């Protein structure tokens, strides 16, 4: 079974402060981890995928298989980062592939 836990429902920081959105997963196979972002009343957009090891909009995330975590980090938060962030786990490769989402963390960056 696939499971994603985002322990923080809400996270509020000030502009310029570091931010870390936590994500833990449970999966018996080889996981694929993603972060999606949803700005107010918009579609979900892919922010990061762990296999790319890239930085988007200053965000990074490292897959830690030992801790089964994929935390999202940004050293200096900006007001435009305010959004809902979802961690997602892809598994069961093949035609029955699906993404299992965490419950999301609403990030608010205050001026």
């Amino acid at each position, binding site marked *: 079974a696939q499971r994603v836990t985002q322990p923080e429902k809400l996270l509020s920081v000030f502009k310029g402060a570091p931010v870390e959105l936590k994500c833990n997963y449970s999966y018996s196979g080889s996981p694929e981890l993603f972060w999606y972002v949803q700005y107010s009343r918009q579609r979900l957009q892919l922010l990061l995928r762990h*296999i790319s090891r890239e930085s988007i909009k200053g965000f990074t995330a490292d897959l830690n298989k030992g801790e089964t975590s994929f935390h999202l980090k940004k050293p200096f938060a900006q007001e435009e980062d305010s959004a809902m962030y979802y961690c997602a786990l892809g598994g069961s490769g093949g*035609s*029955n592939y*699906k993404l299992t989402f965490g419950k999301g963390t609403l990030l608010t960056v205050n001026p």
Partner: protein
Amino acid sequence: DTAVSQTPKYLVTQMGNDKSIKCEQNLGHDTMYWYKQDSKKFLKIMFSYNNKELIINETVPNRFSPKSPDKAHLNLHINSLELGDSAVYFCASSVTGGAGNTIYFGEGSWLTVV
């Protein structure tokens, strides 16, 4: 040039009605999905189709019936709408449905049942 498009974007309807949400993707993907986002913003998969064939059905009530006339379209028909069906429904697509592929989402359809 929208990749995954859904219509309508907003839908308000009465209990007991039947309604459909249409979805089209122009990415050439062969797997399409429907996800439901409830009032608490929780996202859960409902269905996936691969080349017009139903692959995933996550214990969704029979009142929900997806239809895929071709691999670029996946429509969602809902019979006898209930108050609890109020949610945002997201259509999505990916290349093969296998690991390593990105899932792209539509803009969502806001359904309100009154």
